[in-house]
C-alpha cells in the first residue's frame, strides 16, 4: 500500500494534515514528530510520500531534506510550512522537495499538489488491509456523530454567533498503545491543554477528551465574552467551560439518537489535576481496545483549533449497536 508520512512537531498540525488527505485515497498514514523520527520511518519504508514541516526541534525540515538526499532515500517530499518567505521556498526546492504548501493546509490545496505531481494515482494497489471495525457499524457511528455534530454546531452558532466548521468524524477502534501515544503526546506538548470527562449511560460508558491549542485561548475568551486579561487561572476555567459546551452538546446529540441519557462526571484537566503518566500506568491492564470518535472543530474567523475525542469502552459497543439496530437493519 502507498504510504504517507506526516512529519510535524505539533499534534494539531499532524492531525490537520492527515485530515486533509483525500478521504477515498487508500493509504497507510504514519506520523513523525521531528526529522530524526521521519528518517527512521523512511528507512523502514513508511513513507512513499513525506509531508514535511520546516520548523521542528531535534532535526528541522531543511536538515531532513539534506539527510534524505545524502542517504539517497526514495521518497517524494512536499513541504507544508507556515514559513512562506521566498527564500524558504527556493531552499527546499533546491534540496529536492517537489512543492511547498503554506499552512494551514486545506484538502483542496493538497489534492491540487498531489494531482500536479501525479502522486494520487501512483502505485495503485488493491487494499488488502482488514479494518478491525465492521464498515457498516463504522458508517453508522459516523452518521450519528455527524447528526449530533450538526445539532451541536447549530446550537453553538446560534448562541455564540460563530460559524462552526463541521469536521468529518473519524471513527476507529484503537489499541491501548495508540491512546498512550496520544496522551503522552499531549503531555510532551506545551502548546496544548486537554480536559477529560467521564460519561455514563445505561450500558454505555466512556470518556471524552477535549484538546485545545493554547493559541486559541484569547479567541475563546472573546467568544465567551470574558473581559480582562486571560491569566492562567482564567485560561483553565475557559478551557473547562469550552470543553463542557463541546462535550455536552455532542453527547446530548448522540444521546437523543440512541434514546439514552448520559450523566457526566466532573471534568479533569490532564496533566494538571492528574498526571498523564499516572493515568497511563494505572490503566495498563483494564482494557485492550476502545472505540474512538475523533472530531476536529474550527471556528470561522477565529483562531480556535479544538479536537474532541470520544472514547467508548468495547462493552459499550454491544449496547450501542442494539440501540442503533434500526439504522443497521438495511445492511
Amino acid at each position, binding site marked *: 500500500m502507498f504510504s504517507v508520512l506526516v512529519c510535524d512537531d505539533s499534534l494539531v498540525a499532524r492531525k490537520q494534515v492527515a485530515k486533509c488527505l483525500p478521504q477515498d485515497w487508500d493509504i497507510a498514514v504514519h506520523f513523525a514528530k521531528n526529522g530524526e523520527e521521519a528518517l527512521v520511518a523512511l528507512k523502514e519504508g513508511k513513507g512513499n510520500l513525506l509531508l514535511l514541516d520546516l520548523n521542528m526541534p531535534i532535526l528541522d525540515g531543511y536538515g531532513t531534506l539534506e539527510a534524505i538526499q545524502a542517504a539517497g532515500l526514495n521518497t517524494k517530499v512536499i513541504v507544508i510550512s507556515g514559513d512562506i518567505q521566498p527564500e524558504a521556498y527556493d531552499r527546499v526546492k533546491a534540496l529536492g522537495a517537489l512543492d511547498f504548501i503554506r499552512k494551514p493546509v486545506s484538502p483542496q490545496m493538497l489534492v491540487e499538489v498531489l494531482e500536479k505531481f501525479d502522486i494520487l494515482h501512483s502505485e495503485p494497489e488493491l487494499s488488502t488491509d482488514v479494518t478491525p471495525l465492521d464498515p457498516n457499524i463504522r458508517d453508522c457511528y459516523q452518521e450519528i456523530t455527524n447528526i449530533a455534530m450538526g445539532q451541536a454546531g447549530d*446550537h*453553538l452558532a446560534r*448562541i455564540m454567533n460563530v460559524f462552526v466548521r463541521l469536521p468529518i468524524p473519524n471513527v476507529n477502534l484503537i489499541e491501548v498503545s495508540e491512546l498512550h501515544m496520544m496522551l503522552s503526546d499531549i503531555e510532551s506538548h506545551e502548546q496544548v491543554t486537554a480536559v477529560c470527562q467521564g460519561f455514563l449511560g445505561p450500558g454505555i460508558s466512556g470518556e471524552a477528551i477535549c484538546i485545545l491549542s493554547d493559541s486559541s485561548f484569547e479567541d475563546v475568551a472573546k467568544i*465567551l*465574552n*470574558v473581559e480582562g486579561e486571560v491569566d492562567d*487561572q482564567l485560561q*483553565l*476555567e475557559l478551557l*473547562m*467551560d469550552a470543553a*463542557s*459546551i463541546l*462535550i*455536552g*452538546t455532542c453527547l*446530548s446529540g448522540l444521546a437523543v439518537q440512541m434514546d439514552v441519557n448520559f450523566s*457526566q462526571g*466532573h*471534568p*479533569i*484537566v490532564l496533566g*494538571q*489535576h492528574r498526571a498523564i503518566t499516572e493515568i497511563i500506568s494505572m490503566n495498563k491492564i483494564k482494557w485492550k481496545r476502545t472505540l474512538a470518535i475523533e472530531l476536529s472543530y474550527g471556528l470561522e474567523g477565529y483562531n480556535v483549533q479544538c479536537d474532541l475525542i470520544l472514547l467508548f469502552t468495547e462493552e459499550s459497543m454491544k449496547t450501542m449497536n442494539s440501540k442503533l439496530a434500526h439504522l443497521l437493519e438495511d445492511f
Partner: protein
Amino acid sequence: MSQHLDDILEFHWMMDMLQTVDVGIVVLNRQYQVQVWNGFMESHSGKLPSDVRDQSLFDLFPTIKEDWFKQKSKPVFELKTRAFMTWEQRPYLFKFPNYRPITGSESFMYQNITLSPLISATGNVEYISMMIYDMTDVAVGKKQLEAIQVQITEAKERQQFSR
C-alpha cells in the same frame, strides 16, 4: 382515590429524600431567584428555605460575582449542557464551614458544583439545578499527598548530597 393517595405519598417521600440527601440542591429560575433550597443548603448556610425562596442568589451571597455566574450558566439555559466548577480551580462558591468543625483540618468546605438544565415538558429550560458536593476530604487527601511527595523528593536530594 387510593391511587391519588399513593401518588401523594410517593411525592412526599421523594421530597423527603431531596430534602435529606447529603448533597446541596438548589433550583434557580432565569432571574437567578432561588426556587428550591434543600436541607443540606439550609444546614450549612444557616438560611431557611422560607428566607431564600424567590430571593436573588446574588443578593443572598454577595461574594458570588453576578457577571461571572451568568456567563457560566448561560450555556446551561441556552444549550442545555451542564456546567462544572471544581474545587481545584475555585475551592468554594458558598463559604460553608467544614462539616467536621472539630477534627477537620480545613476551615471551610471544598466544593464541586454542577449546573444542569431542568427541561420542562415543552422542552424549554426555565430552571436550572445546582448540585453542591462536599470535596473537603478529597482536597485534604490530595494536599497531604502532595506534601509527602515534596518531602520524599527533598529527602532524596539530601541523601544524594550527603554521599
